[in-house]
Structure formats: structure tokens, C-alpha cells
């Protein structure tokens, strides 16, 4: 090589001062960006824990977790979280029952049956659906869904769990569709061809090969969607009512953990009172529920990756 590069005669052992300074600064700035989210998470968990611990100094954790009456503002107050937990399960479970079959069906349609042109139309519509603010769903539940529910089931309360389940189902639908569709489409083309080459019909291939191969990713999408439904707040606070009670009847008015937190944090509970601290204890419970669901979904996804590699 006859060409002489600018660095050809540079000292190879030590980086130049300016370059080292820039590299070091960038490293620090990027580290701070990453650290911000970590510190925020740690901070939130700490606040939840500290305030909850004060609450559990007054109320036994056994009573909290097993009590079946939630009347924190009565005299004497009772702090059994089960009615709120029950309300959350009712709404999240109901929305899952509605959204999972619909979402899976739509995902299979988009991935296996729809023409590319149809997919190009449907996917943006799903994205729009995902972008609608949850408060809009909340008042749609009251002004639109509730009258329909009450015309079918005259015994239903104006605010009831079914209202909330229906709108939450619509809210989590795009998540199920898009995550499940991604998983279905990531099933290698070679598997599809292998099955078609054996004289399988589209239904055979979808049910017998594609779905089983994509099963763990689909399960993970369901669980993530349920976690989203558990944490959903605004629509539920508006549509489901504010009556914490132990019921599995979707036509009853109920209250979820999230709706309770909304109600209490906008109320007039002075800081440091037991009523104020309840929202941290409920928040911690809620956080643990969604955390468990997220961890479960990650675990299932990890297993799927191992299966493919």
C-alpha cells in the first residue's frame, strides 16, 4: 500500500485527548438516560412500599387480603380488599372473554386469510382504535353501551361491570390482534409450505400447524392484554360504578382497584391519614398483579424463543 492514511503515523497506544473526552461524555449521558427509567421505577416502588408499610402498621395484612368488606370511610372502617379485587377480576375477566376470541379470530384472518390490500386497510384502523383515549371509551360506555345493556337486561344497574368489560374489551382488542398477528406471521414460511405440500387445506394448516407453533406468543399476548385490562382506569372508573362488593354478576355495580384509587385520590383525605394510605396499599396490590402477569408473559415468550432456536 502506497497511500498514506492520515493516522498512519499516529501513536497507537493512547487515544487522543479530545476523542477520549467526547467518548467518555457520551457514555455518561447515555448512561444517565438509561438510569432515569431505572431510578423512576425504583422510586415508585419505594414510595408504594413505604406508604403501604405505614398502612399495614394500622391494618393487619391478613385482614387486608382476606376481608370481604371494603368500607374505608365508614366508622369503624373495614379494609378487606377482596371486593375491589373481585371487581377487577370481573371487569378484566369479562373483557378477556369478549376480546380474546374476537382478537384471535381477527389476528388469524389478518395473518392467514386477508389479502395484502385488505390488511393494508384493516391494520391502520386497528391502530386508530388503539389510539382512542380511554376517557372517550368511558363516556361511550355510559351513554351508549349502558342503555343497550339495560335494554337487554332490565335488571342491570346503570353503572355495571358489563359496561366496563365491553369497552375494556374494545380497548385491549388492538393489542391482542397486533401481538397475535405478529406471532402468527413469524411462524416460518417453510412450515406453511411444508403443510400445504402435504395436501393440507388452509384450515388444516392454520389449526394444525400455525396455531400450535405460535401458541406461546398468542398466550403471551392474551396475558399482556389482561394485564392492561387489570390496570385500565378511566373507562372503568366512569362505567362500572363505585360500589365495592363481592359479586360475580356482571350486571351489578362494582368498583375496581383502579377506580377506587381514582375516587380516593381526588377526594379530601388529608395526607398521612389511613384513608389516604389505602390508595398506596391498593396501588401496591395492583402493581403486584400486573407485574406477575407481565413476568408470566415474558416467561412464556422466552420459552417460545428457545423452542424455535
Amino acid at each position: 500500500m502506497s497511500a498514506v492514511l492520515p493516522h498512519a503515523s499516529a501513536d497507537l497506544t493512547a487515544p487522543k485527548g479530545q476523542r477520549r473526552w467526547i467518548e467518555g461524555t457520551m457514555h455518561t449521558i447515555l448512561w444517565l438516560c438509561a438510569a432515569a427509567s431505572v431510578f423512576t421505577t425504583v422510586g415508585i416502588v419505594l414510595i408504594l412500599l413505604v406508604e403501604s408499610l405505614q398502612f399495614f402498621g394500622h391494618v393487619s395484612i391478613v385482614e387486608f387480603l382476606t376481608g370481604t368488606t371494603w368500607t374505608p370511610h365508614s366508622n369503624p372502617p373495614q379494609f378487606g380488599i377482596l371486593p375491589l379485587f373481585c371487581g377487577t377480576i370481573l371487569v378484566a375477566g369479562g373483557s378477556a372473554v369478549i376480546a380474546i376470541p374476537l382478537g384471535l379470530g381477527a389476528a388469524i384472518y389478518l395473518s392467514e386469510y386477508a389479502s395484502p390490500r385488505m390488511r393494508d386497510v384493516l391494520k391502520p384502523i386497528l391502530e386508530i382504535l388503539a389510539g382512542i383515549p380511554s376517557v372517550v371509551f368511558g363516556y361511550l360506555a355510559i351513554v351508549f353501551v349502558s342503555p343497550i345493556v339495560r335494554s337487554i337486561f332490565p335488571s342491570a344497574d346503570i353503572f355495571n361491570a358489563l359496561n366496563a368489560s365491553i369497552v375494556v374489551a374494545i380497548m385491549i382488542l388492538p393489542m391482542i390482534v397486533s401481538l397475535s398477528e405478529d406471532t402468527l406471521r413469524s411462524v416460518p414460511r417453510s412450515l406453511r409450505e411444508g403443510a400445504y405440500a402435504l395436501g393440507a387445506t388452509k384450515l388444516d394448516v392454520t389449526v394444525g400447524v400455525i396455531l400450535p407453533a405460535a401458541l406461546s406468543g398468542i398466550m403471551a399476548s392474551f396475558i399482556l392484554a389482561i394485564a392492561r385490562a387489570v390496570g385500565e382506569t378511566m373507562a372503568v372508573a366512569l362505567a362500572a360504578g363505585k360500589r365495592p362488593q363481592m359479586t360475580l354478576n356482571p350486571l351489578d355495580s362494582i368498583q375496581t382497584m383502579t377506580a377506587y384509587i381514582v375516587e380516593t385520590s381526588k377526594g379530601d383525605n388529608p395526607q398521612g391519614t389511613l384513608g389516604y394510605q389505602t390508595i398506596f396499599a391498593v396501588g401496591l396490590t395492583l402493581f403486584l398483579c400486573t407485574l406477575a402477569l407481565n413476568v408470566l408473559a415474558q416467561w412464556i415468550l422466552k420459552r417460545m424463543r428457545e423452542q424455535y432456536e
Partner: protein
Amino acid sequence: MMTEASPPARPTRPVTQRLTTVADMRPADDFLERPQKVVATNVNFFYGSHQALHDISLRMPQNCVTALIGPSGCGKSTFLRCLNRMNDMIEGTRVEGEILLEDIDIYRPKTDVVELRKRVGMVFQKSNPFPKSIYENVAYGPRVAGVKQRDVLDGIVEQSLRRSALWEEVSDRLNESALRLSGGQQQRLCIARALATDPDVLLMDEPASALDPKSTARIEDLIFELKDTYTIVIVTHNMQQAARVSDQTAFFYEGHLVEAGATTDLFTKPRQKQTEEYITGRFG
């Protein structure tokens, strides 16, 4: 049936060896006089506006191995995939001309593609076992064809695995995941899976290109045995392989069928200059 220990039915030669000598090849027999199993006439194929095959006419006689050779992108795989209408799955493709399976035009509008693919099986370049057990992989074809009785399925699975020379290795672990088999075993499983639907024709798209020499030799022995029962069309990059396993060879170049004929003739006295240059390794 062969096992790893027993000597192969026919001496296998190292794959790395340069062009096989005339003595290694079977003589051009009367294969063109045999009944024609698949006859392609004036086939043109288009991906959108791009024409990938130009006026291909080729006869594939029964119980013969037809090898399709040629450089990458020459259209040999595309042609193979026309024979079981696998290209139908790709959007925007179009076929012109006629392909007869026995006396049925497989591209006539009322052809049942599902039935066609039961009669024309396919083995792919990259082994593609389903993420299911060994048993369920082989039983898949018969199951979708409606076979339900367990003892019938058991029989098909065993027979297919024996034919693909895999039975001895897997008979005691049929319920294990197929994904745990080695690459060579997976490919023989895919062959067994294709045989389980009892096809007339077996299409093989570079079935050994991802395998080590030993597994390749086994697949080649297998092809040699299978042609007694099936009509085989194999795409291969490897000219020694074409010379070893096939009765007829067709040389494709840039979407055209340059030359087809008895394998011995094509490799010893090619009529076209392009063929000669390709088989002597001057390009490709």
C-alpha cells in the same frame, strides 16, 4: 433397511470428488419409452411482470429421476414448484402453458390443488419439520387426508419411516420432538412425511444442500431406492449429485431450458456450449 452400521446398498463416493466418470453413471436406458408421468409443455411463468420461465417443455417419465440443474436464479426451483402449484401461494404469480400429471392438466380451473399436492409430494431445501413429535410429523398428511384409526396411522408412520431409512434410529422415540433430530435426520423425516401421503411424484428441492457429506450420501441412496416406487424430480446445485442419482438431466439457464436428455449423454456429450461450460465448471 439400512442402518448406520450396515454397508450401503451401493458404494457411495465422496461428494467432493470432481466430475464423475462415465463408468460411474448408469447407461442411458430406455427411460424415454416409459410412460410419461408429468409432461410440461410451453410453460411460461411470471412473477408480476418479470418472466422467470420461458417456454419450458419437459417430459418426466415414470419411475425415473429427473434432475434439474443450473446456476442460482436459473428458474429450476420455480419450475419444480410449478409441478405441485406451490407458486400459487406467492402473490402476483402467473403460469401459462400446460402441465399434465398423467392426463390431467393441473392448471385447468377446476383442479383441486389439495388433491394434487397429495399426489405430488415435496421435500424442501431446508428441512422443515413441524414443531411436533416425530410421529405427528409423519402422521400429519394422512390425518389431514382423513385417516383417523390409530392402527392405520401407526402402520403408515412405520412404513414411511422405514422407507426413508430413519425407522431404526427413531423407532424407540417417536413421541420426542422432531426438532431434536439432527439435520440429516430431520431431512429424512421430511421425506418420510412426504411419503406418508402415498404420492405418485416426489419433488425434491435441493434436499441435501444443507447436509454434511455422509447425510447427503444417505439421501442419495434413498433417492435411488425410492424411484422404484415414485417418479422423482430433484433440483440440485451439485452436478456430481445429478450425475449420480438421475436418469434424465435438464439444464436451466436464465429461465430457459437449454438442454435436457439422458444424464449420461448430457454429462458426456452435451449438445449446447452453455451446458458444456456449466458442467465443466466454467461458470455457475
